[in-house]
């Protein structure tokens, strides 16, 4: 093994300790005949040639050894006589030196490996001459081991070989330890370089594969925090929502593609979808919190909003939309029996929250690819960071909820329709939609449902209806329809919704694996396609397993069926058994569960 390594390295890189050791062993045999010859024959040329020849020639052991021998022999010209000692001392001394000089190994080692041949050759030849000429001369060179080592490392392998040879010479001659460290440094550097060469390949891979880089979701947390803070603040800055929009946009643009139409995004469809998309991409966890906060705020703000009565024409004017929401919220509050009075600090906040809600709702619509909605624009104007965050949250919630997008489309359609209808309804819609979205989403997932507040629950009925019919409804339109037809759709939504969220979460697990195996950056659409493929794959899988189990007359799918399936897929064959695959790809814990293993007490687990 060492020889193999040394061979390869001799051909390609600086000699390592192992090569040195090998050389030592070899030199003992071949020293007399070869060295003299090589020494006489223009060691320099040999030196120059050997590095190149080493590199070019196939690293056969003999060639490598010869080369190494030549290289070393040059250094050993003086030490031909002291062959006997070298054999005994050098290995030990080499090892000792390695141990001593281990820290001296420089990081520059790998570079030296890559250095071109000519420079090292020149240097080596010069050095060899010097080394041959007088070891003493080399001593001063060697004395500053680190610096020299570094310098030597930079030029290339030859130099290191020289150093080693010099070192060996020094050893033979009993040079002071200064040289030894030097040689050791070279040797250790070689080893370290070898180690580095081992290690470096890994790094470039990771660096060269930016696709594997994980998208830092840090922004989402910040948004939420900022959002909550903003909510707490009493400042109602409706203008300049762009800033907050932009920040999430940067983070989320890609994510939005994944999510289909979100309910209640209609009103804001007209706005820049990107911004909203980013908002929607917020983490669902944040959405949860945001929802609650929003819902609470909206509730409290409802009555206050009424006071504002900023309502203008529905939907068309940018500012109106926002006001509509405000009004709607107030109306909603009146309608909804739940009492939510969370006691939000400021009316403005409530108003803002409502706006955010509306925006959030609208965002889903935008994300749902409903273009041309005005809602977005008005939202942008009036929405501040808080609103955006809220929207993001709701959007994300809606996204979660509307994986297929049918629900979203339904809501959007409804919202659109309702928009024209009445402001109050519209106002309700965004609230209801956002709340419902959240609520429905929550309902689907039990854990979420439990966390929802009354407000959310109240919103659910409103929301369910719009969600159900797959139409591109405007947020505003939603409230009208959902109100009367809330009850029937309610039963429907819980069904598909719980199927989507955890289903997607589980699929995302494999999608991440796919992106890891691909080792390349991937587009969002490609990831969606992968999800669809996985869906189909699971269906095929279940069908096949059913067939196999039925063929065996069973109603339970057993591991034998799985094995048969993999056999048919060609993964398991006579050469590769299932256990081999289990060992290769599954973690140890699962392997223990799958592969029967004998334990003490005459027991086998898992039992066969």
């Amino acid at each position, binding site marked *: 093994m060492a020889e193999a390594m040394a061979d390869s390295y001799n051909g390609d890189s600086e000699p390592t300790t192992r090569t040195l050791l090998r050389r030592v062993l070899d030199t003992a045999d071949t020293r007399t005949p070869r060295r003299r010859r090589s020494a006489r024959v223009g060691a320099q040329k040999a030196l120059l040639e050997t590095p190149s020849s080493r590199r070019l020639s196939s690293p056969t052991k003999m060639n490598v050894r010869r080369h190494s021998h030549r290289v070393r022999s040059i250094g050993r010209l003086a030490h031909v006589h002291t062959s006997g000692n070298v054999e005994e001392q050098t290995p030990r001394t080499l090892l000792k030196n390695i141990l001593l000089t281990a820290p001296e190994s420089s990081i520059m080692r790998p570079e030296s490996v890559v250095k071109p041949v000519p420079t090292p050759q020149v240097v080596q030849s010069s050095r060899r001459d010097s080394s041959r000429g007088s070891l003493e001369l080399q001593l001063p060179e060697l004395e500053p081991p680190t610096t020299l080592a570094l310098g030597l490392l930079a030029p290339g392998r030859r130099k290191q070989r020289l150093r080693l040879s010099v070192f060996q010479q020094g050893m033979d001659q009993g040079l002071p330890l200064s040289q030894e460290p030097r040689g050791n440094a070279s040797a250790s550097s070689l080893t370290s370089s070898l180690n580095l060469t081992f290690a470096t390949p890994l790094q470039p891979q990771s660096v060269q594969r930016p696709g594997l880089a994980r998208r830092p979701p840090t922004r989402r947390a910040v948004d939420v925090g900022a959002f909550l803070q903003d909510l707490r603040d009493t400042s109602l800055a409706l203008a300049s929502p762009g800033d907050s929009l932009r920040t999430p946009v940067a983070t989320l643009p890609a994510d939005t593609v994944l999510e289909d139409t979100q309910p209640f995004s209609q009103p804001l469809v007209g706005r820049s979808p990107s911004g909203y998309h980013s908002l929607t991409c917020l983490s669902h966890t944040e959405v949860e919190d945001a929802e609650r906060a929003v819902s609470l705020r909206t509730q409290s703000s409802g009555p206050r909003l009424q006071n504002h009565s900023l309502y203008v024409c529905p939907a068309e004017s940018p500012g109106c939309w926002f006001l509509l929401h405000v009004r709607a919220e107030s109306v909603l509050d009146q309608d909804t029996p739940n009492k939510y009075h969370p006691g939000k600090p400021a009316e403005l906040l409530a108003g803002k929250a409502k706006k955010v809600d509306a925006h959030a709702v609208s965002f889903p619509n935008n994300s749902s690819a409903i273009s041309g909605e005005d809602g977005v624009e008005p939202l942008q104007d009036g929405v501040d960071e808080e609103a955006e965050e809220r929207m993001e949250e709701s959007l994300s919630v809606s996204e979660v909820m509307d994986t297929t997008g049918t629900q979203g489309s339904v809501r959007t359609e409804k919202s659109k329709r309702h928009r024209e209808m009445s402001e109050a309804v519209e106002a309700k819609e965004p609230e209801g939609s956002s709340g419902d979205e959240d609520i429905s989403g929550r309902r689907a997932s039990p854990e979420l449902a439990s966390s929802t507040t009354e407000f959310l629950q109240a919103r659910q009925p409103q929301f369910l209806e719009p969600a159900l019919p797959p139409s591109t409804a405007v947020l505003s339109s939603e409230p009208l329809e959902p109100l009367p037809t809330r009850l029937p759709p309610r039963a429907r939504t819980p069904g598909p919704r719980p*199927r989507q969220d*955890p*289903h997607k979460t*589980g699929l995302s*697990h*494999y999608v991440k*694996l*796919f992106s*890891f*195996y*691909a*080792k*390349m*950056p*991937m*587009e969002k*659409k*490609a990831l969606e*396609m*992968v999800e669809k*493929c*996985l869906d*189909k*794959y*699971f*269906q*095929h899988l*279940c069908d096949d*397993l*059913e067939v196999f*189990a039925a063929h065996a007359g069973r*109603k*339970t*799918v*057993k*591991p034998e*069926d*799985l*094995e048969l*399936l*993999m*056999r*048919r*897929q*060609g*993964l398991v064959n006579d050469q590769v058994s*299932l256990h081999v*695959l*289990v060992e290769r*790809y*599954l*973690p140890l*814990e*699962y392997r223990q*569960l*799958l592969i029967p*293993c004998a334990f003490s007490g005459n*027991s086998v*687990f*898992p039992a066969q």
Partner: protein
Amino acid sequence: MAFSTTVSQRKHIKRKAPRGFLKRVFKRQKPHLRLETSGDLLVHLNCLLFVHRLAEETRMNAFENKCGVIKKEHVQAAAKVKVRLKSLKSVCNSKEEQRLEVKEHIFENYMMYYFRW
């Protein structure tokens, strides 16, 4: 530990199998069937291998098109191949034939990739 059906020593497993998700998927698809305890681990293994092969195929497609980014079309083409092969595998009895087919396809892709670059 030998007799425990759960991981006892260290609870932290890298690349955990979403056993609950797999069970749920199976139940949803085939509610009249049951899946055994260790069966979902093998299903997870199957998924891993499938995803691995799909990713390799997709990567090769992307290389063929000299793209640095994997696009939807690459995935689609790879999926078609996979589905076709899978269906063929399930239909065709001769595994060697299937394997040869797969190998040919892969080899062809490699050659294209090689010559393009």
